[in-house]
């Protein structure tokens, strides 16, 4: 499916779905991140907790996505990338991402987005500079793709809260999984 049609699919899915204020989501997420920082007092720990939480979300979210998006089956990892960026991002966050920076072996790509509904007004204090504030998204990608038999690594490499111009998540296909029973996510 062409990128343009995927964009249309994403728009349509977002249009159809029930929506809430982005600020409500951002505040809930932000308050939670701040609480994690109080509880753990360590950027790496918080990054890990956010990724884990994202994973728990991802394994559930994928069903919602498949049911509501009319997304076509992925024929390739490249298809997957486009669907995540143009359909899933748009459907859940209201903003699409761009896919780029493919590695030569076609197993790694970047998701790039400027607007981040989780962090519209967030300013990360300097002492928390090691936190990837929106790390939950990496967990979601990992959890969701695992449910469709792709084990990936997803990590932030650039974040606007750290002074960069863009947000960039680097996604690498580690291996294609065989069908197996539902995973424990604890």
């Amino acid at each position: 499916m062409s990128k343009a049609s995927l964009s249309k699919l994403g728009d349509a899915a977002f249009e159809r779905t029930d929506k809430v204020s982005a600020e409500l989501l951002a505040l809930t997420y932000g308050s939670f991140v701040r609480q994690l920082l109080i509880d753990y007092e360590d950027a790496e720990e918080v990054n890990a907790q956010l990724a884990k939480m994202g994973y728990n979300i991802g394994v559930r979210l994928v069903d919602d996505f498949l049911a509501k998006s009319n997304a076509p089956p992925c024929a390739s990892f490249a298809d997957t990338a486009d669907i995540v960026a143009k359909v899933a991002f748009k459907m859940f966050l209201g903003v699409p991402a761009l896919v780029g920076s493919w590695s030569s072996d076609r197993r790694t790509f970047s998701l790039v987005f400027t607007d981040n509904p989780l962090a519209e007004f967030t300013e990360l204090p300097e002492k928390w500079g090691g936190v990837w504030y929106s790390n939950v998204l990496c967990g979601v990608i990992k959890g969701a793709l695992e449910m469709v038999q792709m084990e990936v690594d997803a990590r932030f490499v650039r974040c606007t809260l750290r002074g960069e111009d863009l947000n960039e998540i680097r996604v690498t296909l580690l291996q294609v999984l065989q069908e197996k029973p539902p995973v424990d996510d604890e």
Partner: protein
Amino acid sequence: MATSSGAGVTSTSRSGAGVGSGSRPVGRVACAAVINHNNAPLFLKVFKDAAGSLPRQTDAVVRMQMHEVVYNSLDVVEERLVALRAQSARDNDGFLGCLAVVGPMSLYGFVTNTHLKFIIALRSTGPHDYKDSTVKALFRKLHAAVIGAFLNPFTLPDAPIVSAGFEARVDEIARRFG
């Protein structure tokens, strides 16, 4: 580190014309202050030249003077709030009008439904230099910026607003006002 996302602060299309001596343009916004319901200061920014400070006065002195001026005007705010209650709640837009004229400045007040008080000091020759609608528009922008600051999880709503993004927005509001 600070983000300044276009936080819905719409700008009026004023050019940066200001009154001033010499070649440096002086803005008309002398001070913007945000004060909590319990009169604790959350933010106070002085734009020194517009405040009519003397050339040798240090920033700290000017700031202290402005602080005092703003706090004195809170008494008038209280009076106006009492008067406001006599009016219909429907007509409420929070605007308290010109609170005081102090030297080369006129102070205007605004109160939100959440009991935050905003004071803006504008460079003026008297209380009638600015139309109410002009000043109200300024307060709306300041309010939008404050809402944005509260949407930052690392700004605590009852503590002084320490946010590079917020300060940048206030600077921008003042700059665009001219």
